């Protein structure tokens, strides 16, 4: 099945990364040397990739580690292009009806402390992620529900045996948080040692971390990709305020920020620096959702939920919000432009996606009247983060006002917001989001299931679950696509158990002397920095 989807994907994907500057650049010979300074807008909770979920850890720490496989840094926009990092040759295809993956491990790789890498290290790492013991946090354990056993027939071979064939396994394996640790460290120091210590096989060696200030790395001379990294080192400078990050690039205190800026910031930088700034843009594997709480009346009524989605002018919103916020693309449950994603014609069949917004709004008013809620009031919970939560939230309030819905928006800091979303459930509708790293559509779409641990709609929909079960096991690409449409229609249109607002849009303006870095559809991807060089 993986092969079929892979072929479909390769045949259909057309360059997702809309690269304004770098895309047009001709191939240049990389130069070695220099220190890359970059700014990071979030904090490092700990160095342990297996338990953390934030880019605040990935951007400064990922360069110290390798993965078994990774997204191809030269083609990160392609959701099906993976390459071996610590494995040898090409990424293996599944055998035994798609249930067995055998990886050959590179020889001659050493950890930064000099310990040679063997398959035992990969197994110890994957065991920690897939089968964590009691008291061992693993944020991505659920990604590997299909894994049955992990074995090492010899020192340079590792075998993953799956319970059932799934296209979700390879993308899950390429997740950038799956840092490969040394078995020796895990055995000697325990499962928590990597929270505060670094020992990887990555392109850079750890120099120092001043909490709240910066992380420094220096070139690993024994890196397994010969000739790389090009940089002598890097300095990841913590800068929580966007204005500081922007000024830092303008004043050349930093060359790049990997997460992304809103359009206005891009325009300001280009205006002040001209050719010295290169802009790369891409669709982003993050989507902002509005989730009705079906445990509260009248949001248990599908007509009311339908009215809510019908009131939203997504096409108009895309046009205007994309000028002020990091959102742009209209889409369904799948990452836009993915072979399995809905086309515009398919989207327009869903409630709330019609380009004739007046017709949609008339239908919304009629549904509200039918349900006896013409003067509906909504308690709307939002997160106190400007981009894009507050911008999109305020836009939603206005959209719903146009169908006669009075919305009271409650904006709370992240802590109380999550408490409200996960525990208190004291909202009618809440902003929610799905932000993933590697594009893994089969896994990513679980967010819309009532049974998902990260769905906060508080509903049960056996029909949707049944469709998803078929999706998980379907091997035929055409049938799979049809099933995804059924899933999408059920979730977003018929039941409106979730509302997709707009997909995020990633804008990375950076100093033009930064070369080799290609924008990915996620701010978590291609952050090992071994392919970046400075043309100074």
């Amino acid at each position, binding site marked *: 099945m993986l092969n079929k989807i892979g072929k479909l994907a390769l045949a259909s994907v057309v360059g997702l990364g809309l690269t304004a500057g770098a895309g047009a650049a001709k191939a240049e010979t990389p130069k070695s040397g220099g220190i890359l300074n970059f700014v990071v807008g979030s904090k490092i909770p700990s160095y342990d990739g297996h338990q953390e979920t934030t880019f605040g850890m990935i951007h400064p720490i990922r360069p110290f580690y390798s993965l078994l496989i990774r997204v191809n840094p030269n083609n990160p926009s392609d959701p099906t292009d993976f390459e071996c990092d610590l494995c040898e040759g090409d990424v293996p295809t599944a055998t035994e009806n798609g249930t067995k993956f055998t990886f050959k491990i590179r020889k001659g790789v050493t950890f930064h402390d000099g310990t040679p890498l063997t398959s035992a290290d990969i197994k110890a790492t994957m065991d920690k992620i897939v089968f964590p013991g009691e008291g061992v946090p693993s944020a991505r354990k659920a990604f590997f529900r299909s894994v049955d056993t992990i074995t090492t027939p010899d020192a340079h071979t590792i075998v993953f045996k799956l319970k059932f064939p799934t296209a979700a396994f390879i993308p899950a394996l390429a997740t950038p948080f799956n840092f490969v640790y040394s078995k020796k460290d895990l055995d000697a120091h325990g499962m928590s040692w990597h929270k505060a210590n670094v020992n990887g096989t990555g392109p850079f060696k750890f120099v120092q971390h001043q909490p709240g200030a910066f992380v420094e790395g220096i070139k690993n001379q024994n890196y397994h990709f010969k000739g790389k990294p090009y940089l002598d080192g890097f300095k990841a400078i913590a800068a929580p305020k966007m204005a*500081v990050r922007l000024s830092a690039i303008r004043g050349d205190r930093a060359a790049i920020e990997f997460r992304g800026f809103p359009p206005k910031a891009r325009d300001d930088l280009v205006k002040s620096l001209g050719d010295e700034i290169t802009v790369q843009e891409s669709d982003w594997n993050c989507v902002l959702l509005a989730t009705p709480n079906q445990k509260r009346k009248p949001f248990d009524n599908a007509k009311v939920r339908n009215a809510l989605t019908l009131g939203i002018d997504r096409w108009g919103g895309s046009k205007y919000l994309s000028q002020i916020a990091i959102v742009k693309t209209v889409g369904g449950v799948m990452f836009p432009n993915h072979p399995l994603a809905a086309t515009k014609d398919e989207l327009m069949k869903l409630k709330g996606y019609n380009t004739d917004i007046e017709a949609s709004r008339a239908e919304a008013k009629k549904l509200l009247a039918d349900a006896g809620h013409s003067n509906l009031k909504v308690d709307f919970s939002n997160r106190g983060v400007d981009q894009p939560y507050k911008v999109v939230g305020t836009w939603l309030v206005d959209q719903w006002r146009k169908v006669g819905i009075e919305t009271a928006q409650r904006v709370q800091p992240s802590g109380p917001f999550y*408490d409200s979303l996960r525990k208190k459930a004291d909202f009618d509708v809440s902003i929610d989001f799905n932000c993933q790293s590697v594009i893994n559509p089969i896994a990513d779409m679980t967010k819309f299931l009532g049974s998902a641990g990260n769905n906060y709609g508080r509903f049960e929909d056996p029909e949707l679950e049944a469709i998803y079960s078929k999706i998980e096991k379907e091997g035929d690409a055409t049938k799979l696509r049809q099933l995804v449409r059924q899933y999408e229609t059920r979730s977003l249109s018929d039941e409106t158990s979730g509302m997709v607002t707009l997909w995020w849009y990633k804008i990375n303006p950076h100093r033009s002397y930064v070369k080799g870095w290609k924008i990915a559809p996620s701010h978590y991807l291609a952050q090992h920095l071994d392919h970046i060089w400075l043309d100074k």
Partner: protein
Amino acid sequence: MSKYIFKRVLLMIPTLIGAGVLVFFLMRLIPGDVCELRFAGTGLYVDQAQIDTCRSNLGIDRPMFVQFADFMIGFFTFNFGDSMWTGKPILFEIGLRFELSLQVAIMATFVAVIIAIPLGAISAIKQDTWLDYAVRTFAIAGIAIPSFWLGIMIILGLLIVTQQVTGIPWMPPIDYKPIWVDPAHNIAQLIWPAVATGYRYSAVATRMTRSALLEVLREDYIRTARAKGLIEKVVINRHALKNAMLPVVTIIGIEFAFLMGGLVVTEQVFNLNGIGKLFIESVQNHDYAMTEALVMLVVLIFVVTNFIIDLCYAWLDPRIRYS
């Protein structure tokens, strides 16, 4: 005098305990916790067992009174434990930032004092002249302009002006280096926040110096000093200014203590890794242990500063010392 000092030190203890109780319980009234924030923060699927494991590892699932007892014992033994967010020792985390915050506070105080006392004195001596009006305008502007806004304007101004003049935009460094490691880098980074906060600080102190000096200049003993033929310089410096300093010292002390923990926004504007930034981050992260330690630190700084101000009072005004 020693009896006075002893009494003041004893008074600090209930103040610190009261602050400790308050901050411990107020922090726990905020909905959510550090584990929920860490695991749910990116919208990923979160297994409730993972969150429970995290809570158990951090000890925040224990009964409240056990946690409180731990906190108070830690406070009195100077063992605040580890940050719930980073896992690093709290004293290490605070120590890293304390040096920077202290330097900014000292530099801002220096800026404020060298501006405020001469300007305030001139303004009082030359009352109702154009000089007085100019100083008062300067002072009122300083009070009205928020430091963070001035900071933003300074950075933007530097970027624009340097680009216009040299063609290359320049801004202060955004990474801290101690003054003994790289003095030029250190000063280039910290002089701007010191000016931004020092301006507001000096404005308050200028106003206070002016009004205190005006009051003293109308006292009988000043008239007597002039009547007996003392030159004006001696009257002002020896008799008037020293007596006018009591409220000014209070303002300087309180502002200094405030700068040690209250530069929350200015530190963000200049990307300073100081106590204020740590404060805001620890509150955002629901890092109870760190927030409690920081509040106690700031309370301690205020209490000690007030204590020093009181000692200065006694030195400046012998009537306090002898009573």
